[in-house]
């Protein structure tokens, strides 16, 4: 009973500590909120950006003997006027290069794509390559790069069409057949349509372009990019601050030693082990309350889907064991509360960085990720990543087991040192 009395007293004091409330609840939510606002445009997958203004000069003409229906330059030109790019490219046509340069100088456009008169002719004549000129505002980077990539992509497609045409031609000739003009036109048209569809799909509907993206949404529910990102960000903050909260709450034993209340507790008919257990229980409860509040806040504010109930419970429990264990161990090395700042700051921030808590949305090298296997925070992060990915509780057995063992070992060492320090 006295264990609960001591834990309740510590819990009451913690709830009245503005510093602890700030660090346990306000700080992780505020940091996550900042990131949320910074990347808020990712919501629903929409990325708002200033449209790229592109000027097109298409001087290309169809050679008289060409078996094409229209010059290749027209395909380049049409690509910039396509409906699928209208939301982020504003294209306009200019009569010649000088008009486009004038518009560029007047900053009416950011990029000018100049397609020369003999582009198709030279292209069809093997070995001769006439470049498409791209002029750009020197202060811009993204727009010109996008325009260049689009042109290159299209030309790659045309080259692919050429290859396809030659292969078909060789195969037909091998079979004693020839391709008439209408057939060639139909072939190129079919290829061009396929390629245009492929490009559109690649940009706008990747799944139709055979690009498979795994969604981290739980339970098969639709999710969006922002929610996915915020889930990992929030998990990183939750873990980092839960370890900090645990350590700070455990520091109450140092405060009590300095305030004289610990010595006074020892003068009461209360066993010292009971006193220590009461203080440990308080830390356990504080970390649990913090975890629950942040999970609910993450769901309500940022729409984070934490996962299935079973995995969430195991992740929270594992996190509690690990953070309390590390807190007890860390504080057992500290003699005064003044030492706590640098030791907590150094140890918890260092371990947090090594565990990847601050780089949850960045693909780190495998060697870096491996370091997390040696830290409690690293395993808690693994647990939350599994939970966020909607994994079932059985997938949590290993991280949960590792966290419980880590927590117990760290706790045992710390508790042993405390008992030694406060021996009867």
């Amino acid at each position, binding site marked *: *009973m*006295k264990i609960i*009395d001591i834990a309740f*007293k510590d819990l*009451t*004091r913690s709830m*009245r*500590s503005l510093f602890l409330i700030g660090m346990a609840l306000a700080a992780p939510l505020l940091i996550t909120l900042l990131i949320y606002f910074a990347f808020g445009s990712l919501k629903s997958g929409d990325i708002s950006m200033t449209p790229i203004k592109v000027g097109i000069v298409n001087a290309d003409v169809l050679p008289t003997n060409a078996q094409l229906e229209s010059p290749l330059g027209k395909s380049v030109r049409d690509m910039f006027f396509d409906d699928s790019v209208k939301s982020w490219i504003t294209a306009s046509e200019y009569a010649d290069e000088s008009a486009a340069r004038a518009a560029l100088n007047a900053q009416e456009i950011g990029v000018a794509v100049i397609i020369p008169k003999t582009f198709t002719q030279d292209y069809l004549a093997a070995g001769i390559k006439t470049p498409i000129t791209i002029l750009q505002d020197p202060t811009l980077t993204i727009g010109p790069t996008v325009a260049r990539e689009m042109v290159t992509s299209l030309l790659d497609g045309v080259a692919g069409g050429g290859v396809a045409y030659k292969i078909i031609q060789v195969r037909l000739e091998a079979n004693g057949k020839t391709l008439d003009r209408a057939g060639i036109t139909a072939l190129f048209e079919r290829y061009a349509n396929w390629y245009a569809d492929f490009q559109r799909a690649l940009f706008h509907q990747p799944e139709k372009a055979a690009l498979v993206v795994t969604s981290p949404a739980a339970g098969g529910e639709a999710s969006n990019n922002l929610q996915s990102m915020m889930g990992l960000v929030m998990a990183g903050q939750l873990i980092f601050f839960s370890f900090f909260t645990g350590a700070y709450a455990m520091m109450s034993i140092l405060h009590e030693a300095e*305030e*004289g*209340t610990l*010595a*006074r*507790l*020892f*003068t*009461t*008919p*209360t*066993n010292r082990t009971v006193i220590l257990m009461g203080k440990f229980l308080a830390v356990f409860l504080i970390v649990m309350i913090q975890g629950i509040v942040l999970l609910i806040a993450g769901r309500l504010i940022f729409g984070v889907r934490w996962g299935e109930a079973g995995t969430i419970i195991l992740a929270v429990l594992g996190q509690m064991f690990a953070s309390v264990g590390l807190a007890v161990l860390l504080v057992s090395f500290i003699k005064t509360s003044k030492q706590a700042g640098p030791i907590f700051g150094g140890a918890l921030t260092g371990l947090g960085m090594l565990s990847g808590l601050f780089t949850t949305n960045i693909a780190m090298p495998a060697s870096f990720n491996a370091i997390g296997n040696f830290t409690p925070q690293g395993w808690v992060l693994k647990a939350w990543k599994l939970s966020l990915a909607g994994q079932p509780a059985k997938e949590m057995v290993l991280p949960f087991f590792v966290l419980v063992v880590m927590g117990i070992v760290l706790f045992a060492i710390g508790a042993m040192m405390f008992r030694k320090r406060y021996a*009867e």
Partner: protein
Amino acid sequence: MNAIEVINLKKSFGDLLAVDGASFKVDSGEVLSLLGPNGAGKSTTISILSGLLLPTEGDAFIMEHSVTKEPTTAKASLGVVPQDIALYPDLSAGENLVFWGKMYGLRGSTLKVRVDEVLDIIGLADRQKDAVGKFSGGMKRRVNIGAALLHKPDVIIMDEPTVGIDPQSRRHILDNVKELNQKGMTVLYTTHYMEEATELSQHIAIMDKGKVIAYGTHDELIKLVGELTRIDITLNTEAEKILSEWRKTEGVSRIDSTDGKVTALVDDSNRVLPRLFDTAAQVGVRITSVDIQEPNLEMVFLHLTGRALRD
């Protein structure tokens, strides 16, 4: 019955012998003042009695329970008022008392009744919901005492409870101690204020350098210095010039000098003082002030150790 019994208590910290074979007894229902200068070993003795430290040698008993062999039982009979305020500043006076009551095993209605009674005793019933951190030093001291009274202990140990507080709060605390004693509580009171020891206690133990150097009632201790009178003399020059001459003066029991001030224990000030003036005139030293005091505990300590109590 002995409420407290200390037998040949020793406690060393490395090479430092803080308590060196101290022994004394406190009868049930009496107040014993443990008097001594800073570093005399009072607080270490108190810490052993409170169960905070284990003795290197010897033992101590609270209500006949050994503090080394039956610490929990001994502590249950004991209320300890630490020298420094040992309360939770962010909890209210009432919350503090409830918590400390629980630590002494009180629960439910018993706890509630005792908290209310103690709040009345310490005169803070109307401030029970205020955080202790907002209290004045004297009010904190009163709550500090109240926390040790909740379980109605047989013995209460008060370690210099009046250090650094205003006269009004000091008076309140001294009255509280007397009232508790009148209700039958045994009190072990440590102080380096001889006036408090004189006012409160039936017996006084004087400690110095870890030993109990004198024990008895106030009158018994005063008799140790006999009919001696203390004379404090200030000179216009260094005392060393005349001290050896004055030591030869008839009627001077003891004479020492500290910080340029000479303190003499003499058998009859009316007879000795003119002789001291004569000698000073012969040596060419001028006496600038003289203060004559009747025998008191300060003089006892001076007589026994050659040092002032508050040195």
